[in-house]
């Protein structure tokens, strides 16, 4: 129990959330008819949150995949309809891929773009609520005052925003490794002009 609950959540945010789409993708390719991918993903988060020595995990993406694999195996055992196909496919989950590429570790630019891109799809009030609360760090009351609404509204906007982001990040989002190759680096100079570098 060396990590606090908040640190574990932070770990999930940093190391699992960005890979959810990839894990999901791999699970879908298993073609296990009785398997509900959403169930596995939700359970994966719970298992990782409760894992005893998270801080020693060196390859989080692989770890997430292994965790998902464990859940699938349990599912197959319980359902007692272990098809040979499913077992063979399971090995596919094990395929290793390099995890320490510079691109993936630098990440921050991609992270900003990804979060900005996701937030852009939210209704304005919803988006502002999330930004004021989480990025500016205002309290619920301060946020309510700033937006001229009740605290209750702030709470429901938060809930709505999170639910939407779950979809955006998890369901559709591509893993960073796939999505960053066509990004253009954008920088600005003193006079505010934008330059592009490929």
């Amino acid at each position: 129990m060396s990590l606090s609950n908040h640190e574990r959540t932070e770990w999930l945010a940093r190391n699992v959330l960005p890979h959810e789409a990839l894990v999901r993708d791999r699970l879908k390719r298993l073609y296990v008819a009785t398997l509900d991918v959403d169930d596995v993903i939700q359970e994966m988060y719970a298992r990782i949150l409760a894992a005893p020595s998270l801080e020693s995990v060196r390859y989080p993406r692989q770890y997430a995949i292994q965790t998902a694999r464990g859940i699938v195996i349990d599912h197959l055992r319980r359902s007692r309809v272990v098809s040979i196909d499913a077992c063979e496919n399971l090995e596919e989950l094990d395929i290793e891929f390099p995890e320490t590429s510079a691109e993936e570790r630098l990440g921050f630019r991609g992270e900003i773009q990804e979060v900005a891109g996701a937030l852009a799809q939210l209704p304005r009030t919803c988006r502002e609520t999330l930004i004021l609360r989480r990025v500016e760090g205002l309290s619920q009351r301060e946020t309510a005052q700033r937006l001229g609404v009740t605290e209750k509204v702030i709470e429901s906007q938060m809930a709505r925003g999170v639910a939407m982001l779950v979809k955006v990040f998890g369901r559709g989002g591509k893993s960073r490794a796939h999505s960053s190759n066509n990004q253009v680096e954008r920088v600005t100079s003193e006079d505010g002009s934008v330059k592009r570098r490929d």
Partner: protein
Amino acid sequence: MGQLNDEIDRTAAEWAAKVAGGSLSLSESERFEAWRAADIRHAGAFARAQAILVRLERLRAVGADALRTTIEEYPAAATDPEDCAEPQPVSGASSAAMHPRLLMRRRLMVSGAAACLAVAGLAGVFLLPVSSQQEFSTGLGEARQVRLSDGSLVTLNTNSKIVVAYTDSVRKIRLIQGEAIFKVAKNKQRPFIVSAHDTDVRAVGTSFTVQLLPEKPVRIVVQEGVVEVVRRDAPAIVPVRAKAQTQAIVSGSAPIVVQSIARPVVARQLAWQYGRIALENETLADAAEEFSRYSDTRIVVDPAVAGRTITGLFAADDPVGFAKVAASVLDLRVEEGPKEVRIVR
């Protein structure tokens, strides 16, 4: 079945919002715990919802304004879908399609070059046993988190060193050099004192940063709560109390100065937690000095251009990457040498 998962995700988001709001009544918190324990998927969905909130929080170092500006560049944001039902997935394509016309006012610039050592370093959190004195340090470009025996969390920035000396009555830490953030576990009976040279910073339960850099005054930035700053060596200098969003500057024989400091500025100054250096209209000379704290590759700036300013978020351990971006933005050139990179006209 998918319907059911959506339902779980929605409920999880509602709980996450409630918990974040901090207004959970006793009966609500019982209902929440019962819900979470009822199904492992509930626990997982809740963990993910919280992780999303944390992910947003991680952008504090970038600042809300810069984030908003980036958001504005997405066509989706411009149309303001107040009734948007199904959000579209994030993809590389959408970021490539960013609106070039909308320039970034408060610029957000990111070095795209190297991997970020400091973040990797932060991934490991060490638990240390109770003991009388212990020393922790980081090398150039490293950052490290240490969980102390009382539950307090110390994050060491680059090239920093602390000595922890806990007793039953007091939690004493000496900052020998560098910079560290202290998230102090509450314990009124056992004050938490950080000493930097002759300055003592006392806290009960709070979060603050102490900086002790060569030839600079001792600087304390308070993120949460209140700390008391005392000059042990000079009783004539009046101790001060510094509260959240203020900084205390302690130098020579001058009185201790407390200044308020805007939240985004605090966040920017703590960007190193994520292995970043955040600059806002800093001169190249200042930027070079900041980078020198993290790497033994020096940035040498041609005096003729040392006053030019730059804004952006950069990988702290990649001075060469920074120099290249800065040069390209400011129409300058970079010359690379061994352990040195020059920014010249």
